[in-house]
């Protein structure tokens, strides 16, 4: 009986392995292969101008030294942190606030919810064009309206102070519905009992949110924040269309910096090194947030 059971479990393991192989092969080819190639390329000075440069491993860490100690990389990372902090912060606050407002079951609210989702489903380039129009004084209805009241504010996207917040605002408009949706889904799954108990105990609206609803939606909120944080690092179309990294370099965040180095200056090896550093950063961030998310419910 025991021998039969062992044979069966060996057979089962073998079947699982055989069944998994195609998926693993596809994963290796589609994901791991390019990732490994990216890392290998980052160890070379690859540039299309010098055909043999892709096989030159004589100074394997030169690109990393260039990125970490000499280039504008650190500046771009700092900008990226600023942009991510502003956008994720605003999206979280706005997403939670709107989700709390829309957390009821009337038909009107359902229609309003759908309306809020529109920015999120628009192609990013369309969002960028919408905001380019809004931010261009000559054609912007906002500027025209302000002009009617005698106000003539400067162009936000060409101001060194306001260019980054202007991008953050556009990004928030596009993506706060994602947080809203996640939080709303969590709120709608919340049982009524704790809310009723808190009401009977005389909890204020703020206490109700802070001590009852927030602990319940925290796991969903953590997931939303994690997704938005990772996505914020990929911000590209808005910057490309609205500011082109300028004025000066005030909106040249890391992936835009990598783009310029790779495609304008043909430093492919260096671009690969920046991409590798970004992947490592995002990976570390994901681990950290996943850990925070995992301990959060117990703490609550």
């Amino acid at each position: 009986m025991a021998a039969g059971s062992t044979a069966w479990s060996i057979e089962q393991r073998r079947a699982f392995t055989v069944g998994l192989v195609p998926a693993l092969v596809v994963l290796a080819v589609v994901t791991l292969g390019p990732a490994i190639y990216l890392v290998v390329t980052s160890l070379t000075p690859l540039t299309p101008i010098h055909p043999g440069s892709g096989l030159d491993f004589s100074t394997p860490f030169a690109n990393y030294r260039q990125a970490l100690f000499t280039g504008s990389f650190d500046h771009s990372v700092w900008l990226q942190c600023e942009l991510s902090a502003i956008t994720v912060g605003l999206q979280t606050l706005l997403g939670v606030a709107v989700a709390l407002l829309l957390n009821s079951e009337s038909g009107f609210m359902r229609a309003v919810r759908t309306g809020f989702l529109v920015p999120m489903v628009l192609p990013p380039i369309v969002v960028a064009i919408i905001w380019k129009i809004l931010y261009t004084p000559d054609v912007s209805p906002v500027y025209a309206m302000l002009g009617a009241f005698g106000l003539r504010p400067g162009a936000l996207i060409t101001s060194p102070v306001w260019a980054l917040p202007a991008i953050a605002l556009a990004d928030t408009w596009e993506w706060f519905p994602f947080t809203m949706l996640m939080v709303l889904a969590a709120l709608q799954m919340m049982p009524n009992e704790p809310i009723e108990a808190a009401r009977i105990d005389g909890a204020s609206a703020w206490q109700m949110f802070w001590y009852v609803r927030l602990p319940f939606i925290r796991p969903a909120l953590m997931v939303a924040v994690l997704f938005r944080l990772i996505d914020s690092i990929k911000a590209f179309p808005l910057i490309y269309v609205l500011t082109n990294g300028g004025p000066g370099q005030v909106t040249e965040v890391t992936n835009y910096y990598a783009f310029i180095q790779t495609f304008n200056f043909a430093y492919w090896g260096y671009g690969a090194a920046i991409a590798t550093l970004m992947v490592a950063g995002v990976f570390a961030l994901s681990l950290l947030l996943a850990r925070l998310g995992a301990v959060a419910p117990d703490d609550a």
Partner: protein
Amino acid sequence: MRGTIRRRQVLAAGTTAAGLLALPGKAPAAGGAKPLSGVTLNISCWSAPYPLLLAKYIPEFEAETGARVIYTTPSFPIYNQRMGLALATKSDAYDVVNVTFIFIGQWVGAGWVMPLDPFIADPARTPASWDAKDFFPGTTTAFRNAQGQLCAIPWIADVMMGGASRYDLIRKAGLGLPDTFAEMPKMLAAVNGKDGVPGFLTENHYGWTFPGYLQGFGGNIFRNPPHDLMPVLDTPAAVEAAGFFSDLLRKYAPRGALSYTYDEVVAALKSGKVNYATENEAFVTQMAQPGSTVTETCGFSLFPAGPAGRFPQVATHGWGIPAGSRNKDAAWQFITWAMSQKLLLRMFREHGWSSVTRRSIVELPEFRSKLTFNGFDVAKMYLDTVELAAKGYMAYRTVPPYPQVDRQIDIAIQGIVSGEKTAQQAMAAAQRNSIAQLRRAGVKL
């Protein structure tokens, strides 16, 4: 058995051959078939007046030759990024491409585009009447590789000049178009905001629009290009030029001037939303063309002279054949058609295309008279500018690592105009970063 196999093999081979011949484009030409029947040519150029105009004539080339043409004209930065990648990877995605002036050093130097001399020298492929020597030498020199072979046929001599959409306002102020830098602030101060029209604008590619001012003040990009590529962006002349140019944008340009691309500048000029610009001839002369609202009030001048002289920027772009193209002969046929006297003359006569690179057309009396707008002899300005560039002051622009320096100039001017930095700080940073970029590119300084 052996015999059977042989018969099968013969039958299979015959069937395969018949099948291959039946494929589109592979069948031998029947009597009267067009020379490029079945050939698909992928052609791309950045979006500019000439390539957009050429699109109207391409159906004629298709009808004449039987070729199918897939023609794309993305914006300048997108075109350059897309093409840089395609050429670097020796892709066969394109058969005819624009060789961008700023990338000549890279694209021609690395052998990414074909030398065209063998095509030109072959009478079977190029009739003598096509006359390759008719192109202005100033426009072809930049396209020669280290062996002196021509690698692109220039379709434009992009010369920079001055243009006003509301010359009437300038006249009303008792002034004319500025001939010197010193006259510019005076004129702009007099007309800025009149009729709600801001005075001045240039496109936000300052690596192109600023060097004319830089050189006019006695500065330059490099110490002695192409031999000595030490940047000289922090000299007193360079700082003065940057301060002067940025002041024009800060004081007299519309809000958000730093975000204006070349097509937006053209639109602003054509609609009279901005008065004066120093821009490419092909752009400013659109003010005098149908579709403009300022045909009656526009005026033109040479690019103003600075204390050190007049340095209007002249760029040239040309049609080339990528090394990876699989249709090189057909591609050459397209280039000879697109750059023939016959077609260029038609483009000029039918649509007013004026940035022509063939001397035989520019010297026609009808060219001269048609390019006189509101009394301004633009043809003469064009010729004078092309001849000025023969002095060689544009040599800085075709060295392979120029794009990196170009970016530093963009950043510096944006920094000054936005108030983020002083001219001194911005140009010092441009100098520092340019040196770092050049060393990184392997340039010995």
